[in-house]
């Protein structure tokens, strides 16, 4: 990795103008995964003085600045209450505290890392991303974007929903990337199911959710069928951490467990 220049931005507009002035310029979030990407960067633009490290709770939402660290987020009281703590749980399994004090939620989301533990959990909630200069979109739409995206993520807004969440990371050891992540959230009205580290990036299980949400009663048979739809409609693959078959077996088991946990416990 080579960084030729470093610039601490004094405003979002200054950062944006500098970013678009050269395709080799880049914004740094926490910089935690920068060594993985080993890019050659002309000017690294730092947002750390722009007060994007706040978490503000209102009656209906939680607004998170993109420079909030994963540790800040994990231990924030508003976040700990969401879905009985499943977002905090998904953050607590990301390496150690020394890492989570560096990595930011903005960097995690913009990186669209397939191995991310927190992205599947966030996908099950109504999450809106706010970009400078003037764009908003859902987390799911952002994850589905193709190509380079130059706008600057400034805030992540989670609409508060009453409900219960479930999160499971399966990994060989706590410090390794997940072989599979499963998140389930049940609100008053419906279920959301997300699968990450497939090893592809996290996705919502739309077909399985549509089936489950159309049922009047959640029986063992319905849960079994929902898990089968997840396997039939979501693409799983193999890598050195685990085979496609192993991931499917895990997904089946943990989707069922997640639905039961948010429904009956």
């Amino acid at each position: 990795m080579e960084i030729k220049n470093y610039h601490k931005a004094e405003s979002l507009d200054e950062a944006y103008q500098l970013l678009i002035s050269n395709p080799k310029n880049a914004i740094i979030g926490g910089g935690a995964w920068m060594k993985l990407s080993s890019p050659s960067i002309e000017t690294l633009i730092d947002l750390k003085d722009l007060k994007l490290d706040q978490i503000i709770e209102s009656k209906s939402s939680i607004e998170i600045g993109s420079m909030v660290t994963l540790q800040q987020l994990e231990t924030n009281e508003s976040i700990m209450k969401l879905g009985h703590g499943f977002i905090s749980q998904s953050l607590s399994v990301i390496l150690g505290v020394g890492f989570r004090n560096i990595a930011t939620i903005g960097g995690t989301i913009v990186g669209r890392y397939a191995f991310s533990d927190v992205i599947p959990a966030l996908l099950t909630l109504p999450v809106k991303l706010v970009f400078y200069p003037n764009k908003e979109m859902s987390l799911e739409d952002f994850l589905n974007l193709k190509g380079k995206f130059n706008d600057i993520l400034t805030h992540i807004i989670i609409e508060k929903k009453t409900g219960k969440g479930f999160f499971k990371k399966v990994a060989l050891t706590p410090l390794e990337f997940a072989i599979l992540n499963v998140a389930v959230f049940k609100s008053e009205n419906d279920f959301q199911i997300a699968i990450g580290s497939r090893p592809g990036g996290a996705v919502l299980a739309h077909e399985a959710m549509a089936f489950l949400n159309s049922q009047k009663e959640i029986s063992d048979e319905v849960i079994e069928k929902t898990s089968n739809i997840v396997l039939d409609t979501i693409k799983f693959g193999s890598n050195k951490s685990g085979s496609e078959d192993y991931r499917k077996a895990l997904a089946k088991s943990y989707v069922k467990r997640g639905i039961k946990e948010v429904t009956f416990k």
Partner: protein
Amino acid sequence: MKVEFLLNGRNRIFDVSPDEYLLETLRNHYVTSVRNGCNESTCGVCTVLLDGKPVLSCTVLTVRIEGQHVTTVEGIQNEVSHISDFFGDEGADQCGFCNSGLALTIYALKNEYKNPTEADIKNYIVGNLCRCSGYQAQLKAIKRYLEDNK
């Protein structure tokens, strides 16, 4: 680039390149209590405190910490000595390579939590790997240290 920050309470100015990590800066200036282990954000032996919070110095670019406080074990010698007593008593010390990073993490844990549970302790120190001890003796030592500091 010139970067100025407080190292163990003393104002220091370092001349670094934009892609130099704090681990390199410290070790290049003979602060070798900060160990170089995996150098890829995993093992925790390079832990330092940045404004009181544990961070992996192999993952922090030095240019980003202008004006901040960096603490290594040299900056909290009495506390480290106190922690070491419990480690010695419990037989939690072996090669010692991970000790400085772990001691800083334990010190931060003590400051952050009033009454940490065993799960809190394990979650906090999970990023500090030790290849000798098997963790049980360390866990006992940490609990005794925290109990003693209540």
